[in-house]
Structures are given as C-alpha cells and as structure tokens.
C-alpha cells in the first residue's frame, strides 16, 4: 500500500525485506496473544511505508498504538519490539499468568500444545492424574441411568468418589446443575418484563390517525441485567479432594451463565475464566496448568481476597453480582486481614455465598479462625460436599 515505489531495484529489494521482517514481527506478536488480523497487517504495512518508519522509537510507538488492544498488550509490547527489531533481551515473551484474560479464542488452541506440557506440575496435572482418564471417558458424557442412580450419586460425599465412572457422572451432573440454574434465571427475567416508561416515539407514530391523542400507548421496558456469578475457588492442599470436582463445576458455570468469572486461589489469586471457557475439558485443564502454579500448597485467603479487591473487583463486579467463595476457611494469614477484605467485598457486591465442603462432615462447626472472621459478611453459608448440596443452592440463586 503506497510503498516506496522506487525504480531502483535494490530499494525495492530493501522494502521487500522490510515487509518480510514485518510479517515475522506480526507473527511473533500473534504468538504472544496479540490480536493481529489482516486489517492490522495492511495498516502496519502502510505505517512502515510512511515517514513514521524513519526512527525506531517512532515506529515502535506507531505499531504499539496499532496492534495493542489492552493494557497487558501495552505493557509487554516494548519488550517484544526491542527483542525482535533491536535484538535486545529475550526472543519471545511467554504469556504469563495474568495474560490468560487477554488471550483470544484463536490463540487458545496453540497453548494447549507442547509448552503447556512442559510447564511444571500445576493444577492441570494434578487434576489430570486424578481424573484425566475419567474426563476422556466422559465424552460423550455418561447418561444417567434412571433417577435412582443419580440420586444415590448426588448424595455421595465428593471425597468418596474414586471410581472414574462415578467421577465422570459427577461432572455431568455439575454441568447440568449449572445449566438449570441459568435457565431458571433467564425465565424469571422474562416474567418481570413490564412497561415502565412510555415510549413516546412509537406512541405518536401509532396515534397520528387519532390526531395525536395518545389512545394506544406504547411502553418501554427496562431490561434487567442478568445475574453475574463470580466464583472464587480455594485450590489449596486442604481442599485437594474437592478441587477437581469444583473445577468441573466452574467449567459448567462459565459455559452456561451469560456472565460469570472464575478465580482460583491458594497462596495467590489467578483469573482462570479465559482458560476455563475452553470447550474441551482436557484442553481447559492444560491451560489451567499454565496458570495455576503452586496449587495444593497453603492458603492465604485474606491476601487472595485483597488481590481480588485491588485488581479485579472494579472490573468484574457490578450491581447484580453474586460472589461464590468455595473454601474450607483454613487460612494461614491473619484473621484481621481476612475480615477487612471480606468487609470490602460485602460493600461491593449484592450477595456473598460461601460454600464449605466441611459442613457436610459430622460434627463440623466453623471454628477455623479465618472462617470465623469471614462469617459476619457472608449472606449464605452452605455445605458443598455433594451434588445435592449444590443443587439446593439453585432456588437461592434464582431469587437474586
């Protein structure tokens, strides 16, 4: 596009070489989860042919404005540019933990490749060894054989599920549950629709023949915001028995809810929505392994909540948001931090549901210090040791 159309052969050659370099650069960007399409390539070529390409710093600024789409891109662009054009520093920036959100559908596929496997033991691996086979067997998902069997399974404590087939069934149930929560919600929404404000434009149009006398009135309806569900899942060692089931449950929730976000926490907080939105469960787990390192260690709930409040809350919480925290409440941090952060959180969102798998145990009382600190701010404290207890949540969520 408007390239230096010089008659000198070597100049032409030089611009061809530049174009080649540019396409190499753009594909490097693509590998780093930038959204660079055909239009961007075209525009980049135009930039390269213009006066902006005269100095590296200016070219960098121009391409930066062109191909970046969000802050995470903005922050890593300079390094990638310098590495490619000026051969400075590293050759390739590997997408890091919080880049997950920035990744687009198209890039997701690549990630499940070899790099994902090279990563050291993360959640994916842990889950994969415990039920990876089960997951593969589960496609197509094992249909429930009659209500009786499903009933029995839904009462089994997750801890006792070892048999892969049973696990697969549990997963299918979780997904189904998430689906039915959602459909209930959207039905309620429709039932609520009623005219609130008069729609003047349509009313006048309708009533021109009545001489403008508003005999037939048209109404405007206010659309209700769908409920947004944000799940914070404790993936620490003490929860390891349940983690895989809940990951599957969250997977179902993200699939089925119109608006949902998911975070994992252990000693730190990881935003996992993008990874879990992957349709294929196995691939989702691969991507998780990239993101969640250190799963199964200690828990710092308070600090994880602080991280959530500081960095994510503003973006993901709106006026119709329900927070679901799934944790046993065993916190290695101080209860004061936990209480302060819970208070912050309670101010922001509509409801906080705390699911604790331990409630299902005989003789359990919420005595853990962290749990004690958090309880005053929790709207619903419910068990989550089996699928029935999750199913019991449905009417509660539907009421919100």
């Amino acid at each position, binding site marked *: 596009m408007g390239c230096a159309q010089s008659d000198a052969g070597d100049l032409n050659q030089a611009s061809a070489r530049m174009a080649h370099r540019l396409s190499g650069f753009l594909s490097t960007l693509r590998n780093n989860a930038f*959204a660079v*399409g055909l*239009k*961007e390539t075209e*525009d980049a070529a*135009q*930039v390269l042919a*213009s*006066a*902006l390409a005269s100095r590296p*710093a*200016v070219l960098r*600024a*121009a391409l*930066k*404005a*062109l191909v*970046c*789409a*969000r*802050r995470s*891109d*903005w922050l890593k662009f300079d390094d990638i540019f310098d590495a490619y054009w000026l051969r400075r520093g590293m050759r390739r920036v590997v997408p890091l933990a919080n880049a997950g*959100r920035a990744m*687009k559908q198209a890039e997701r596929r690549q990630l499940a490749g070899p790099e994902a496997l090279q990563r050291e033991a993360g959640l994916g691996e842990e889950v994969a060894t415990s039920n990876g086979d089960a997951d593969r067997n589960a496609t197509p998902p094992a249909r429930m054989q009659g209500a009786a069997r499903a009933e029995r399974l839904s009462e089994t404590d997750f801890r006792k599920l070892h048999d892969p087939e049973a696990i697969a069934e549990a997963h299918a149930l979780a997904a189904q549950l998430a689906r039915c929560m959602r459909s209930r919600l959207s039905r309620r929404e429709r039932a609520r629709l009623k005219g609130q404000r008069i729609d*003047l*434009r349509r009313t*006048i*149009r309708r009533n*021109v*023949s009545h*001489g*403008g006398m508003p005999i037939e009135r048209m109404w405007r309806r*206010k659309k209700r915001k769908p409920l947004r569900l944000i799940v914070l899942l404790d993936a620490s060692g003490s929860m390891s028995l349940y983690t895989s089931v809940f990951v599957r449950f969250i997977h179902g929730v993200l699939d089925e809810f119109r608006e949902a976000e998911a975070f994992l926490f252990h000693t730190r907080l990881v935003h996992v929505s993008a990874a879990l939105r992957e349709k294929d469960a196995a691939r989702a787990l691969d991507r998780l392994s990239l993101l969640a390192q250190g799963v199964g260690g200690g828990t710092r709930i308070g600090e994880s909540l602080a991280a959530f409040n500081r960095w994510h809350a*503003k*973006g993901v919480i*709106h006026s119709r948001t329900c927070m679901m925290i799934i944790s046993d409440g065993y916190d290695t941090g101080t209860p004061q931090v936990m209480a302060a952060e819970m208070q912050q959180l309670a101010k922001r969102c509509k409801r906080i549901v705390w699911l604790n798998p331990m409630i299902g145990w005989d003789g359990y009382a919420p005595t853990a210090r962290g749990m004690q600190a958090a309880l005053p701010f929790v709207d619903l404290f419910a068990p989550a040791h089996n699928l029935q207890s999750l199913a019991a949540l449905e009417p509660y969520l539907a009421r919100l």
Partner: protein
Amino acid sequence: MAMSRERIAELLGGVGYVADRELPVALQLMDMLGRPLLLEGEAGVGKTEVAKALAAVHGTELIRLQCYEGIDQSTALYEWNYQRQLLAIRAREVSACDSKAVEQDIFSEPFLLERPLLAAIRRDNRPVLLIDEIDRADEEFEAFLLELLSDFQVSIPEFGTVKAKSIPRVVLTSNSTRELSDALRRRCLYHYVDYPDVQRETRIILARVRGIATSLALQIARMVEGVRKEDLRKRPGVAETLDWAAALVGLDVKDLHDDPTTVHETLRCLLKTQEDRARFTPEISARLLGRVA
C-alpha cells in the same frame, strides 16, 4: 493530508496539553488509517483532555457523548421532538389534511433532534467525537457503536439513511470498569494514558497553573510522585495535582519546605477517601517531603 507527529506535538503544546512521546504518533495514525483511538488509564490522568486538545489542534468542534448504564439510541443518536409533533398534529387537524401527509410531515428534518452521534456525522468540518467512558454503556450499545464506527451512516426508519458528510475523528475513553469487546478493541488504535513522570508533570503544572514558580512546580511533581507510590485506595490523578498546585499558589507557599503543616493540610486535595486521609499521617507526609529536594 495527515499532520506529522512533530507538528501535532507542537500544536498540542500550543493548546496547553503536554503529551508524552507516543501520543502524537497515535494521533497521526488516527488520520492516516482512519481508525478511532481508544484511550485507557486510571481516572484523572487526562483522557478526556486529549480529545479536547485534539479538537483545538484541528480547530474543529468537540462533540461529546457521555456514556452511562442504560444509554440508548434516543439519547445517543437522535430523538423526535414530541411536543412539537403533537402540536403540529393538532394544528393540521383544523385544516383537515389526510393523516398520511401529516405523518410524512412530522417525521421530517424540523422535528428531528440530533444527539451527539448524529450530530457528529452531519457536520461539514470533521469534528472530534468524544465517546466518554464507553465501559459504562451496555454491551448492546457497544455493538451498535461498532456498526456506526465502521459505516458512518445511520438509518432512521421514518426518515431514511443519513450518510456522514465528513468522517469525524473518534476518541473513546474507558476506565475499565467493564471489559470491552474484542471487536471494539480491534477496531481502535490503542493508547494507555499513564500517570506522567516528574518532568512531564512539572510541565503540565507550569502550563496549567498561572503564576507558579518552576522550582515549586518541580517540588509538587516530585511530592505527588511519592504520594502515588504509597499504598492508597485512590491514587491522585493529574487533575488532583493541579488542584493542589493551585491551592498552594493561592496560599502563597513559595517552597514546600517552608511550611510542612500547610503542605500536610492541603494534601486533602490529593487524597479523596477518608481511609487514605486517615492513613496519611503527618509523619508520612514529612517523610515524603524529606525526599523532595
């Protein structure tokens, strides 16, 4: 046709906007590639100012659309003047026109109220269209906007299609209270407006606050940089810095070290939540002041 970045930088300086090095390049690209510019950054770093400065640079009108939750086409694009329509219907009733003609008549130009988006595409002299806080609008509105930004034409059912007389320069700002769609992000050039560094902030203060000494401006910029590094709920933006600078000038402070008490007292210009104020003890402000040369 597109202004060079040097010229843009110069003109921006002329209208009192102190830009970083990358912004003029992005502004030049806007004209070169015909793409809108998406500005992100913390509140109070001067995103809206960019659009104002851009309008001043090109000597055109600034048309601003402030987005909010539930904004719809009738507030953003166009609306019919209902009162006038009703009156017109009544008036024609007497002369007994047929209703078809009346309908034709009341849905015509004089009854149309243009809202920012329609106004922006009906101007002769390319205006700057500022779509402020796009993240507050709903997803549906964003999709509608995307369509408008690619076609620059609007169809009004009763009126017909309105094509753009001139393509406006579009600036969008976002505070990232909501994740914007990938489609919109891709459509736009992107610029992240960061807090200015000490040098740039000093220049901003000098450009915006009348009668301030360079040494004081530098001290203020250094102090504000220190404040931003503290663990605050709400970090002060450029607007707050300017307020503070104006306050100090108003109180006739010549040097921050002369009067630490006043400095601490006036820090309320920078700290906007009760929590931050409580955290910011005189000791902390004295410590920060100590680092300011």
